[in-house]
C-alpha cells in the first residue's frame, strides 16, 4: 500500500469516503424517510425496473431520491470545477461564475427561451427542457465569458476589483433581461421562471443525471489535460507565452468549458451561486494551489457542499422545501465578505 504514504492520496481517499457517507445519509433523509433495508434491497435485485409491482418506498427511492442526490453531487462537482477554472482563467481567487455574471447570463438566455421561443408553450416545454434550454443557456454563458475575456484585457491585468465590477455590470444586465421576461411572461411561464432565478434541484430525473454525468466527465478530462497550463497562466500571460503556451487558445478552451458547465447546470437547476467560489477556496486550503490536484478536489468539495445544502433545503421544512439557491447564498455571502477582508491588501 505504498500509495497510502502520499499525503495527497490520503486526502482524496478521505474526501471520497466522506462524500460516500454523505450520499448514504442523504438517501435516507427526506419528507418520506427511507430505511436502510429498502435501499439495500435495490442491490439485491428488487428493482422497480425488474418488478412490475410498484412498491412505494422503492419508487420514491429510485425515481425521486436517488436522481436528486446524484444530481446534487454532480451539480456541486460541476460548480466546483467551473469555479476553479474561472479563478485560474482570470488569475483571480475571487472569481466565480455567479459573481461574474456567467450563470446570470445563462439564466437570462434560458428565460428568453422560455418566454419567446415556444409556440405551444406547455406542450413543447417537456422536450425543450432537455435540449433547447441547455443549448441556449450554454450560449448565454459563453457570450458572458467572451465578454469578460475581451474586457478583462483592457482592465488592468489581474485586477480583482476591476473584474468584480465588470461582473456586477454583467449581472445587472442579466437580471434586467430576466426581469423583462418576468414582466412579459404568462402565469405558467412565470412559475418556470422563478425556478430559474432561485435555483432548485426539485426537478431532478435520470435524464438530467446522465447528461450531467457525461458532460462532467468530458469537461473534467479536457480540463485536467490543461491544468499544467493553468498553473503557468498563474505566472501571468506574458510569462505563460514565454513558456510556450498559446494563451488565446487556452482562454478560449477554458471559456467553452466553463460555459458548458454553467450552461447545463443553470438549464437543469437554475442559478445556484457561491458553490463555485467556496469549493476552490476550501480545496486550496487543504491541498495547495497546484491546479492538477486542485481541480479534482474542488469537484469533491463542491459535491459535498451542494449535497449538504440540498439535503438541508429539502428537509428543513418538511413536507415543503426551500430552494437550495437561497441556502448557498446564505452560506456564501458571509464567506465572500470574509474573503474580501482577508485579501484586502491585494484588492485594487
Amino acid at each position, binding site marked *: 500500500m505504498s500509495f497510502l504514504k502520499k499525503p495527497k492520496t490520503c486526502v482524496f481517499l478521505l474526501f471520497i469516503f466522506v462524500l460516500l457517507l454523505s450520499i448514504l445519509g442523504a438517501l435516507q433523509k427526506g419528507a418520506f424517510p427511507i430505511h436502510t433495508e429498502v435501499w439495500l434491497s435495490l442491490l439485491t435485485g428488487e428493482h422497480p425496473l425488474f418488478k412490475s409491482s410498484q412498491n412505494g418506498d422503492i419508487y420514491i427511492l429510485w425515481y425521486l431520491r436517488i436522481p436528486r442526490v446524484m444530481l446534487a453531487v454532480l451539480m456541486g462537482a460541476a460548480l466546483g470545477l467551473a469555479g476553479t477554472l474561472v479563478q485560474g482563467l482570470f488569475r483571480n481567487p475571487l472569481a466565480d461564475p455567479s459573481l461574474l455574471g456567467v450563470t446570470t447570463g445563462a439564466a437570462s438566455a434560458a428565460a428568453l427561451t422560455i418566454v419567446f421561443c415556444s409556440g405551444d408553450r406547455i406542450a413543447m416545454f417537456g422536450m425543450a427542457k432537455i435540449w433547447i434550454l441547455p443549448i441556449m443557456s450554454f450560449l448565454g454563458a459563453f457570450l458572458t465569458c467572451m465578454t469578460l475575456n475581451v474586457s478583462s484585457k483592457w482592465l488592468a491585468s489581474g485586477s480583482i476589483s476591476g473584474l468584480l465590477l465588470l461582473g456586477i455590470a454583467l449581472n445587472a444586465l442579466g437580471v434586467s433581461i430576466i426581469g423583462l421576461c418576468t414582466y412579459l411572461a404568462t402565469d405558467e411561464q412565470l412559475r418556470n421562471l422563478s425556478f430559474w432565478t432561485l435555483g432548485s434541484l426539485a426537478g431532478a430525473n435520470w435524464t438530467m443525471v446522465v447528461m450531467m454525468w457525461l458532460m462532467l466527465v468530458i469537461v473534467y478530462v479536457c480540463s485536467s489535460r490543461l491544468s*499544467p497550463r493553468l498553473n503557468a497562466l498563474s505566472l501571468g500571460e506574458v510569462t505563460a507565452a514565454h513558456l510556450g503556451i498559446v494563451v488565446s487558445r487556452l482562454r478560449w478552451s477554458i471559456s467553452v468549458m466553463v460555459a458548458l458547465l454553467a450552461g447545463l447546470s443553470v438549464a437543469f437547476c437554475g442559478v445556484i451561486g457561491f458553490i463555485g467560489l467556496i469549493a476552490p477556496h476550501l480545496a486550496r486550503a487543504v491541498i495547495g494551489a497546484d491546479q492538477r490536484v486542485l481541480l479534482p478536489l474542488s469537484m469533491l468539495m463542491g459535491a459535498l457542499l451542494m449535497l449538504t445544502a440540498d439535503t438541508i433545503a429539502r428537509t428543513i421544512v418538511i413536507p415543503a422545501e426551500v430552494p437550495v439557491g437561497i441556502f448557498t447564498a446564505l452560506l456564501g455571502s458571509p464567506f465572500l465578505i470574509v474573503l474580501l477582508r482577508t485579501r484586502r491588501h491585494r484588492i485594487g
Partner: protein
Amino acid sequence: MTMLRLDAVVKKLGRHSLGPYSLCIQHNECVAIVGPNGAGKSTLLKLMSGTYRANTGRIIFNHRPLDCWTSQALSEKRAVLSQFQEFAFALPARIVIGLGRVARNTDPDHHQIVSQAAGLLGLTHHLDQTIDTLSGGELARVHLARVVAQLWDVEHGFILMDEPMAAVDPGCQDFLLETLMGFARLRKHAVIAVMHDLNHALRYFNRLVLVHPTGKLEIVTSGQEAKNALEHLFKVRLSCLKDEQGDLVMLPLRGQRQRTG
C-alpha cells in the same frame, strides 16, 4: 555563426518610436544591454523575446523569422526572465520551476531536471515552500531555476533576462551570475541580459550593447576600451580600477555628471 539577427527593427510605442535597431548575436555569446533609464533597453529585450512585434524590420532566429516560430518550438530554444514577476496563486517552488517545461509534449526526466536546476541555484531546501513565503531574492532564484530548467536538455538556445539581479543581495549576485553563465557555456546557449550594474556587465559578458536614447545601438567589447563609450552614454566620468583579483572595475566619479540641455 549568427543565431539572432535584428534587421532595422522599429517599434512604435504610443507617439514615439524606438529604433531602428540592427544587431547580430552569435551562438554561445553573452551580451549585456546597458543604457540610461527610458532608452529602450526593455523594449529591445521584449522585441527579441517576441512579446512585442516589430512595426517594421525583421528579427531572424536560426535562419527563420521569429514570427514563424510556433510558441512551443520557440519555448524549447529560448527562455525569458521578465523584469517583474507576478503570481496569482501560491504554488510550491517545485511546480514553478517545473513550469519551465510545461510545453514539452513528453518530459520523462521532469522531476530529475527540476531538482537539478534547483540544486544548481541553491534551492534544494526551498522546493516544497510556496512562493508567497519566499523572500524577494529566493523568488528571483526560483525564476532563474525555471529558466534553467526550460533549457536544461537542449543546446544552442538563448536566454533573455531583464535585470535578473535586481532583487538579489550582493553576496549572492556573483554566485548566481557565475552559475548561470557556466550553465549557458556548457549548453552553448547565448545570454542576452539588461544589466544595470556596469561591473557585472563588464565581468560576465563578452560584449555590451549600448542603447542610446536617440535609438542608436553601439556595440563594444567589454573591457578597458568600453570606458569612453560608457562615459559618453551615461554622461558621467568613470574611473577605471583593478580589484584584488585583477578584474576591471569602473566607478562613476562624484559630481561629474554632465548636464544636458
